[in-house]
């Protein structure tokens, strides 16, 4: 193409220089953008929350395994893991062997586990249950339209930096809905306008002219995108982070890039990540197989992330959640149907980890919730509000983030 991208053409150069002038005198788009600085404070504003959602309903019983519970073995004659299969954490629970790369983090107290945790939503619908947790409410039916992460950002004073709130996802997740500044992208490496540097600059300016005025959602998002492009262009090479041992998976890539942004001090405060594929109705496997391979990717990605950030993990907190757990008994297809309670992880340097939080309701018939599910004994908001209070210094914001929730909290350690 002649004009837009090819800057070998002399006429184009002239045109673009003129356009640059016009921009500088009139709109000052690029000049304003360069003021978005790379901060390196790493202190008060340096706290980062990573919210990783396991979509599909992760089987908590095959993640943090109650190997010491007789009922577990009766309910899952084919799927149950034995004592020698798991990485024992205490007399009842063991980590699934696929999580072995997380064991050191747990042992050092940098990983907390919450079991039998979930929302009050009993629909057993993926979408309802996800929607409840991502919007930070008890039931999906509650008339709250924005996400809890978006409310947290708003309560903090809104999003100013273009990369303050980010979702590594094809579409913006519900947790960030309502946050005009939040951005969804899948890969920083591909986050750039097409063409050479000159053509990009010209296009960037043209786009700024098109997007600077409107107050429709696309215009607002367009401005945010243009600002983010400015910053991403100046980031160090994304592929450099490969040496930290991230798996070559989407999650590995997303966590690597999240770590890169944290390191770069571009003002990232919240990153929402997701990993799908947990809806294991059929042939989910036991020590190996479908569910185990998901766990391996999860654990190896998180371990690489923690290893990559090292001491920086003091200001970073990762919460791993899922919409619900799965039926306590296996089905005929050697899988499990939608259930209730599952597990949740909190990672970060000094989170008061190395222990399993929550009351274990047991798996005896009378302890299960109809039609045979692990009961929810800890509201997921107990965990999230503890994280916000202890790790994000946001105690005062809790009534805005989780309106109507005043339940128990976990004793997580401050960041």
């Amino acid at each position, binding site marked *: 193409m002649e004009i837009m991208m090819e800057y070998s053409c002399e006429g184009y150069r002239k045109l673009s220089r003129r356009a640059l002038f016009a921009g500088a005198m009139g709109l000052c788009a690029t000049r304003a953008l360069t003021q978005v600085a790379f901060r390196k404070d790493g202190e008060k504003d340096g706290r980062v929350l990573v919210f990783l959602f396991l979509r599909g309903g992760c089987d908590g019983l095959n993640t943090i395994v109650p190997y010491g519970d007789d009922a577990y073995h009766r309910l899952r004659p084919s799927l149950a893991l034995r004592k020698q299969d798991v990485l024992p954490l205490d007399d009842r629970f063991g980590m699934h062997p696929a999580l072995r790369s997380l064991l050191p983090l747990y042992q050092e107290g940098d990983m907390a586990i919450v079991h039998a945790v979930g929302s009050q939503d009993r629909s057993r619908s993926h979408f309802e249950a996800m929607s409840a947790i991502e919007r930070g409410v008890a039931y*999906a039916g509650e008339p709250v339209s924005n996400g809890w992460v978006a409310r947290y950002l708003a309560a903090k004073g809104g999003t100013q930096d273009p990369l303050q709130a980010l979702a590594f996802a094809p579409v913006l997740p519900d947790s960030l809905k309502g946050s005009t500044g939040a951005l969804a992208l899948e890969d920083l490496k591909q986050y750039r306008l*097409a063409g050479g540097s000159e053509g990009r600059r010209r296009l960037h300016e043209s786009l700024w002219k098109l997007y600077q005025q409107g107050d429709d*959602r696309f215009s607002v998002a367009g401005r945010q995108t243009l600002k983010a492009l400015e910053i991403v262009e100046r980031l160090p090479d994304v592929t450099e982070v490969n040496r930290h041992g991230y798996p070559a998976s989407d999650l590995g890539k997303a966590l690597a890039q999240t770590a890169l942004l944290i390191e770069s001090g571009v003002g990232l405060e919240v990153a929402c990540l997701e990993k799908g594929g947990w809806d294991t*109705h059929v042939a989910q496997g036991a020590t190996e197989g479908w569910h185990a391979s998901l766990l391996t990717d999860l654990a190896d990605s998180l371990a690489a992330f923690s290893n990559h950030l090292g001491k920086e993990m003091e200001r970073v907190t990762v919460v791993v959640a899922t919409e619900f757990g799965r039926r306590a008994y296996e089905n*005929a297809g050697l899988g499990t*149907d939608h259930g209730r309670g599952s597990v949740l992880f909190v990672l970060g340097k000094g989170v008061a980890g190395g222990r399993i939080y929550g009351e274990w309701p047991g798996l005896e018939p009378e302890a299960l919730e109809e039609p045979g599910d692990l009961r929810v004994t800890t509201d997921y908001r107990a965990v999230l509000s503890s994280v916000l209070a202890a790790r994000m210094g946001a105690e005062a914001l809790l009534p805005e983030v989780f309106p109507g929730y005043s339940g128990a909290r976990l004793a997580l350690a401050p960041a």
Partner: protein
Amino acid sequence: MDRRDLLKAALAAASATALAGCGRGLRNLLGNSDLGFAEPLPNPEPIARTLNRVAYGFNLKVAKEVAEKGREAWIESQIAADEEEDPWLVLQIERLDVFRLGPAELRDLPEEEVVRQLQQATILRAVYSRNQLLERMVEFWSDHFNIYARKRFEAWRKPMDEISVIRRHALGKFPDLLRASAKSPAMLEYLDNDRNNKAKPNENYARELMELHTLGVHGGYTQEDVQQVARCFTGWTIENRFGRARGTFRFDESQHDFGEKVVLGHRIPAGGGVEDGEQVLQILATHPSTAKFIAGKLVARFLGDGFEGWRDRLAEIYLQTGGDIRAMLRPLLLSDDLLHAPPLPKRPFDFVASSLRALAAATDGRGVLPYLRAMGQPSHEWPMPDGYPNETESWTGSLLARWNFAIALLSGDVKGVQIDEILRQQPVEAILGRKPGEDPLSRLIAERRDPRERIALCLCSPEFQWR
């Protein structure tokens, strides 16, 4: 054989004229001689809106057709969906293995190629079909009865689902569509109903059937109903025995639970077989919650949110006509609200299809697929059973990929796409279907000389992201 070779082979197989850049299919969009802006369109805005909602976006030539025929008559012909397709498009589609071969023979093709052909057909039809409403409804039902083409053998099963479930009933009666979907091997596999047996019923299909396909999540069913419905469908599976027509629906008596069930208060007596599931479908298809749910989704797709009066009216029509989709669509599409409702976001597929239509681009539908993927909406690849989302917020993150597509399109970087005549037109009128004004886009275009840049900027504008 790489993609280029395949394409070459395809080219060789086609008649030279069909692909010389201006086959008859393209003429539908290009016009026979020129796009001619000599006579301005009478009242272009209602027509532009109509094409944005009923069809896959504005195109000068089609806009003129609508103006000549009359807007209402054109909408009626779209509802009838009896326009003869151009032989060029028919040829393009028929040449694709996915619609030529049965599921068993298709197995010889790699999954990647099968999925790509499915997506190629979807874009070809959206851009070139004369029955645009039909294609919009195919997209609507493909979301409603979403199937993830990357699960197990779905890639090879989906073409049959597309032909005999979605396309066959897209403008028919909802209960027929529902029944066809329930016995579609692609759906049986996607929601694990093929593994549902009496020993331990699998609830996946039962739940999504009520939550997503019929009643809606607040449609008045309980967890107990889910389990009862799952029992009704035990034994529904996919034929896999030697010497039989593999890959078709099969009822396996030995896996069916013959006990009594109660579904939504209806007693289904013991001893029933395949009829148990069929009876469930009948109960659901005639349920007022289903009428309301389907009506609401149609209204949301064509008008947007907040039209509860329309939802109730369409639900009423559903109940009166036994779920006649055409009967529901007619008043909706002919209404003033269609013209005046607030704009709806273009999802990435809309954006790509409407770009190609506006530009009257020549394409085999293949080169644009990587761009759709980058925008987050490759057809048939949404893993969850609720289908691609509709909310604006879900898609604002795809802007960068949209811009880059527009640039690539006008730079000639999208493989197999040619653009020609459009370059001679006034871009705002040709792409957006309105007169240039004092808006930022018109001003910027007036500053620019290169026709390709001018058109790319139209596609990049916030305005073009809405319909």
